[in-house]
């Protein structure tokens, strides 16, 4: 326990102090890492803790991003003031999505969220008078330091919120929902409520991430929140180890900084990055580090195995040598 406390403090201090030795450009990259950290944390709440997989978190980021963009661009709001609004919008959207999501498990939910991730940018393109369409909306600029500070402050707030959430009754309910639906249901925990709540929280975090993302880029248009973004969040979560809170920082740094590091040092070209990432995802899935394995197994859940109706009446056979 003490070691953990030390590591947390060390990490926090490093994060707080590092910007002062970085250039402005690198500070804004640090803000990007914060963005991914929030989005991945959001994804982990839903996938790692309640076992519902989502490939559509880019869409929730889009919601937050567009909320901030529209409020600042069209209505002149102060950017920081838009953050709580984005949080609420995200939460509401997450709950709305979370309700039907209860009906689907595993691969079907992945399919639907995948389609969702592709559909939302199209909708944004369509209602262009609202969203600025493909030309997008421009936003006020900020210094790298400002972005870094605001970004990581949000990360800190979200981490604390998550920690509080997972400690109490909600956390126990989440874990119960993940581990055994039957047991949880029989102990009086209303699974539906908690799972939907988890989705809402997860989307809220992604929305705030989207707001910061938009501020970092000073710009938003539908393509910014495309499929690639949702996939990269997933990559970050996979590298982090689904369900791990600490791995998240590793995952976020991996997704944001590794490509830049590799391309600027000419190890691989920019086009080679997705090839590497894809290969890494496959490798991780093939080798399945303990964290992901445990959680993914929970994510399917024994009573929900889609395959079970296919087995013959004989009991499951184990693999022969």
């Amino acid at each position, binding site marked *: 326990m003490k070691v953990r406390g030390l590591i947390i403090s060390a990490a926090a201090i490093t994060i707080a102090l590092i910007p002062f030795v970085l250039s402005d450009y690198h500070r804004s990259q640090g803000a990007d890492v914060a963005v991914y950290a929030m989005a991945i944390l959001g994804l982990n709440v839903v996938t790692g803790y309640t076992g519902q*997989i989502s490939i559509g978190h880019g869409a929730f980021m889009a919601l937050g991003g567009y909320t901030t963009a529209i409020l600042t661009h069209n209505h002149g709001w102060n950017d920081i003031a838009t953050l709580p609004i984005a949080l609420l919008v995200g939460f509401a959207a997450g709950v709305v999505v979370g309700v039907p999501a209860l009906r689907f498990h595993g691969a079907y939910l992945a399919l639907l969220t995948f389609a969702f991730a592709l*559909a939302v940018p199209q*909708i944004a*393109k369509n209602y262009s008078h609202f969203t600025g369409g493909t030309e997008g909306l421009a936003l006020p600029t900020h210094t790298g330091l400002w972005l870094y500070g605001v970004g990581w402050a949000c990360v800190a707030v979200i981490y604390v919120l998550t920690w509080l959430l997972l400690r109490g009754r909600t956390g126990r309910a989440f874990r119960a929902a993940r581990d055994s639906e039957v047991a949880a249901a029989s102990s009086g925990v209303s699974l539906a409520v908690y799972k939907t709540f988890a989705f809402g929280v997860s989307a809220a975090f992604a929305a705030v991430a989207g707001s910061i993302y938009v501020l970092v880029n000073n710009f938003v248009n539908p393509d910014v929140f495309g499929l690639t973004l949702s996939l990269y969040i*997933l990559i970050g979560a996979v590298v982090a180890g689904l369900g791990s809170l600490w791995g998240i920082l590793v995952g976020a740094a991996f997704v944001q900084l590794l490509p830049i590091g590799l391309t600027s040092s000419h190890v691989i070209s920019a086009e080679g*990055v997705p090839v590497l990432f894809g290969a890494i995802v496959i490798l991780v*899935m093939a080798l399945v580090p303990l964290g992901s394995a445990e959680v993914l197994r929970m994510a399917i859940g024994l009573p929900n195995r889609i395959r079970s109706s296919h087995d013959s009446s004989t009991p499951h056979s184990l693999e022969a040598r």
Partner: protein
Amino acid sequence: MAAYNRYVVGAFLAACAIFLVVGSLQSALFAQLTVSGLANGGIYASLGVALVLIYRATQVINFAQGAIATFTTYVAWQLMTWGLSYWPAFFLTLGIAFVGGTLVELITIRPVERRGNVLTVVIATLGLLILVEGSVGWIWGAEIRFMPSAFPAHSEHIGGVAFSLQDLGTIGISVASVIVLWALFQFTKIGLAMRAAAFRPEAARLVGVRVSWMLSLGWGLAAVLGAVAGMMAAASPSVLLQPNMMDGVLIYAFAAAVLGGLESPAGAVVAGLLIGAMLNLLGSYVSWVTPQLLLPAAFVLMLIVLLVKPSGLFGRTQVRRV
């Protein structure tokens, strides 16, 4: 129960067919939109059958199917750029797709499948999607390229309506490839073994079928269908040859597979053609449905089908936890 469902589905499909035929007879525009819609539908159907093949055998939703189709289409383009004429390049690409698809399963999916977790494999297919799409960009770059078509660009006039040869050809080739595949499954020993392995892997092992090889072959055949879909798509006017070419098509193919019943190849064909035709008509006749809203429409369709009748039009009607 099953009989009732069959009648309802049959009546529904008959109604759709009547709608399309009557509309086509009434209006030349309707007829043209229907045919070009069916051409799109043929592409969705081919890719949809590929998805169904893999899902039926392994319960895995292969997110990389579109990317693999894109890759094979680029291969075809490359062969033609190197001087091969269309049809030789087409068939050579099919062969390459078969080998490639089989190898991909062997190298990337098999090690993950061994872990035994459907969801892990699904995430691996997402990784594969990123990998393959990235490879296309890496090898060929992201610029838009021009894909030649098998069919000359002019239109045939039948009964006063202009039908593009490209559209008719696409419908023909898509349907033909699905029929060839069907024949393979129905009439050959290996096709029978593949079906057995898909339906009852344990029982298939007991009669000597090497189930894991059958899975690899299934991926190979799925890749062939994907290549057909990709080559037809790239030649069509609405799709440009670029690395993310099949992302949208993949969604429509998923919608076709879901609507048809994720385990029914015939369902994917019928649903694909239907979705293609209907979306095309919807886009033209209903004013607020712009081209950008078609993809969200497909998403909504999938959502409704999975909520209301998860087994789709042709799927087995047993209660299944979705």
